[in-house]
């Protein structure tokens, strides 16, 4: 275990924490996290993980920065409009912490590339805004026994939980995609920009805790909040013995792309 002087100083507030320490910081530096979506959630997640010294980040996003993104996607600046989101995010990460290496994937997270993208990561974070992606990420992670953080925001509400193999998965709770257009996405319904930061930082914290093996994660619990009333609650959930993907006799055994709602063309498969 060797830290450079600069590292000792940079991570001193972690090292002082008795649950982190030098060992914990080393663990973070040698950890690999895949962030799917470099938008509203992905921005704070990537920035905080980079600041924390998570040694390697993978970022999956096929979209380019749009002016309407800047209200909440804080990794991107006005000058970045039109650039690939992945590259824009990478630039901010590099400027912030040279200890962090970044791999960019300019593609959508889809059935055909899901397993390949996840390969070699310790933890996956869902920062997407479509149900299709969320179910796909869940199914892929369950099949690959891969822990991940689910997150979703809409209007004033946020929701997140952490999947770990053997525990309740997204489908245990929500079973299957809502009927087309039954639930709007944020491009249709709007979202308060700052709640992307609220939820994203919770997801980042969950990732760091998972990597360190510290504390109690949001496994088998859903945390949801309503920022308008500023009320938080956690609801305990448990595995569903009839779950389509994680039960003893699953009906979903291979990945397929789920169909996207027809009307939401602009940010399909993109990030919240």
């Amino acid at each position, binding site marked *: *275990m060797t*830290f450079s002087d600069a590292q*000792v*100083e940079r991570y*001193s507030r972690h*090292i*002082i924490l*008795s649950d982190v*320490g*030098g*060992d914990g910081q080393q663990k973070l530096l040698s950890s690999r996290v895949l962030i799917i979506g470099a938008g509203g959630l992905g921005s704070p997640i990537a920035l905080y993980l980079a600041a924390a010294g998570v040694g390697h980040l993978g970022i999956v996003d096929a979209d380019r920065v749009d002016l309407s993104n800047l209200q909440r996607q804080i990794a991107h600046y006005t000058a970045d409009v039109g650039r690939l989101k992945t590259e824009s995010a990478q630039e901010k990460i590099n400027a912030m912490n040279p200890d962090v290496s970044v791999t960019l994937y300019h593609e959508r997270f889809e059935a055909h590339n899901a397993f390949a993208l996840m390969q070699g990561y310790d933890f996956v974070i869902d920062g997407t805004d479509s149900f299709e992606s969320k179910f796909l990420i869940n199914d892929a992670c369950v099949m690959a*026994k891969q*822990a991940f953080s689910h997150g979703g925001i809409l209007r004033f509400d946020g929701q997140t939980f952490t999947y*770990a*193999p*053997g*525990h309740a998965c997204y489908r245990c709770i929500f079973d299957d995609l809502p009927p087309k257009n039954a639930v709007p996405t944020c491009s249709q319904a709007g979202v308060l920009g700052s709640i992307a930061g609220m939820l994203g930082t919770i997801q980042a914290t969950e990732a760091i805790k998972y990597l360190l*093996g510290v504390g*109690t*994660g949001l*496994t*088998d*619990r859903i945390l949801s909040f309503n920022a308008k009333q500023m009320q938080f609650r*956690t609801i*305990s959930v*448990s595995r569903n013995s009839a779950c389509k993907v994680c039960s003893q006799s699953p009906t979903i055994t291979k990945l397929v792309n789920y169909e996207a709602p027809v009307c939401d063309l602009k940010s399909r498969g993109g990030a919240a």
Partner: protein
Amino acid sequence: MRFYDNPPVLAEEQALFVHDLVDYSLGNIDPTKFKAIRVAHGVYEQRQDHTYMIRIRCAAGGLTPEQLRKAAELAEAYGGGEVHFTTRQEIQVHNVTIENLMTVIEGLRSVGLSTRGGGGNTIRNILTPSHSGIRPGDVFDVDPYAMALTTRLIHEPDSWNLPRKFKIAFSTAPDDVSFTQATCLGFVAKMNGDQKGFEVYCSGGMGAKPMVGHLLLAWIPDTEVYAVTRAIKTMFDKHGNRRNRNQNRIKFLWKKIGEEEFKQLFHDEYALVQGKDPLVLPELNNEAQATDLPIETVTGQDFENWKNRYVMAQSQPGLSSILIPLKLGDIYKHHADILCDFLDHFGPNTMRCERAQNIRLRNIPDAYLGNAYRMIQQLDTLSEQPAFIGRMMNCTGAQTCKLGICLPRGLSKAIQKRLIVSDLDFDAIADFRLNMSGCPNTCGMHHIAQLGFFGKVGRKDGDLYPAYNVLAGAKVAAGQTEYAQRVTDIAAHAIPEFVYQFLRDYIAKKDQYATYNAYLDSEGFDLIKALCDQYRDVPAYADDASFYTDFGAKKRLSLEQLGTAECSAGMFDMIDVDQKNMKQIIKALPDTAEPADALKTLLFHTSRMLLVTRGLDPKTDTEVFKLFEKHFVQTELVDKQYSAVVLLGLGSSDALVPHADAVVELANAVMALYKGMDDSLKFKLDDAAGSGHTAQHVTQDFRGVACPMNFVKTKLALEALKSGDSLDVLLDDGEPIENVPNSVQQEGHTIVKKEKVENHWQVTIRKA
């Protein structure tokens, strides 16, 4: 006014507790784990499943009228109705169901009362005489010390995780009414010239293996109370026997290592903290508050009797203290309201919990004694009875307590019933201590009784009946405490008559003897034996069934009723659960047709069993295997060859079948490892593995490194060492030397030496 301050994190910890409660009710937390959590929050499960008792801290027994009023309101709305005063000068609310626990706990917090540390391995309620600061002739008021010490200790996070419970008491005079020699750490007020200070006793304790405390320090100035406590606490934390809960009070440490070594260890720790951080004493005024309450005049013999029995003139002229003898330590809301309305006229510092489960009022102007008398008459108390009756002590027993064998509350009532109709002059024995506990655990303090009882099971032709051991003859005084000795035993139902007969003899002969103990030695012990022999013949169940049902019980005594130990559940319970499962699986394995899942479960328990000894709390099944591999296989506590097998746990159980033998071998190796674990949770192999490692001594120069970087670097340097190694760090004077050693200690390491060298410091640290 508050008698102690809660740490700011209390609200947060209680919020976490809410989550755990919800999780538990949803079945997501197993009962063993939940027990450890709730006991630390002062929440005990009662005999009847899913009803709880909440224990509330009252430092030095202090309780304001506002606080009692709130507790009573909550007890009525969500509990069994009564606020119960305990023998440890706290209050309890009983019969709370799980969904109301938080409402009660939060309601209490709103008036500054905390349930945190009501149970569990922590600093329990700190005791003082209820007359501290007001009794004429006392050395000085010890309440401010007990209150300040409470606040200090409950702010220290390491107070919540001691090897076992830790009890502290203060006495105001050598008569030692707080029984400092029957407690882990005791302070008796003593002057040295005109300087206030204390005589310090240590390592006393009652319980099933009672020990009388020893003199630790003949005198310390009053500014040293915290430092002495800190030193003992650290010592206990380091050397307590965490494995065997039953051997894990500071008294056992004294016994194990002997006086000399104990004192040596103490002085090593004390040297590090001596002279530091004296308590900041609260200002407690014992004075009358102005009131416009009209004075009521009362005359007559009853009033005079009451004054003689229950009113004490305070050392503050013109003020009185009044004892209210509660029936079985209980008060209900409408009575509590009457009492608190009255006390509101006289201010917040007007009440203490008293050890015999009564309430002591203070700072009542003499002129208002008539009012007080009329007020007390409206309450349902024993104030019309001789003081001896109200001083009888008993624990709540099997009614609420899961350990209890007998029901001392019922017995106490039955004795009272028998005595009240007698013509004996109980005022002649006003201070007599008649104490009873429902089991050997001494919550009713039978060890310090002049006549005491503790519950046991009697058997007649295979039928069980409630019975008690009989003890007598305790002496209490600072430095001269002796516990009561067990004389014989007796059926519960024979006790009321026995007590009557015995006291009749003693009261008649009392004047012939200098002391009660002289009476006992000359004839009292013989009388106890003779009387008990008379009652030895318990009628057969068929002839008289009443003997087989305890006082106050609904059903006859049976084994099923005798619950299992309700203690601060610890790690060992958790280990035992795994071990039991492992043994069962291994036994059944030869007959298991498809062993894949059984093997996986076995490997799981094997891997999880000892993680807790390393402070590891795996969140997922996967983590169990990973952590075990890392902390037990890679460290070679078990043979490295098992690494592959353990990692098979991460995949499907079928893969284990070809390795069945290895899985069983590994399970046995882990159980053997546990067998060899010592008191400080070290494994025998730790030493073996360590034997190739000679303790290192490393020096690092952190002069010129500012806070907190110097601590960061010290911490990193320590992480590179092995347990037992030493590290010397050079630190600058000023902030660095003030901060770094403390922070290092908080991480559990030992500061062996601090030495000033020219303009800097050399600190020697031993890695934990």
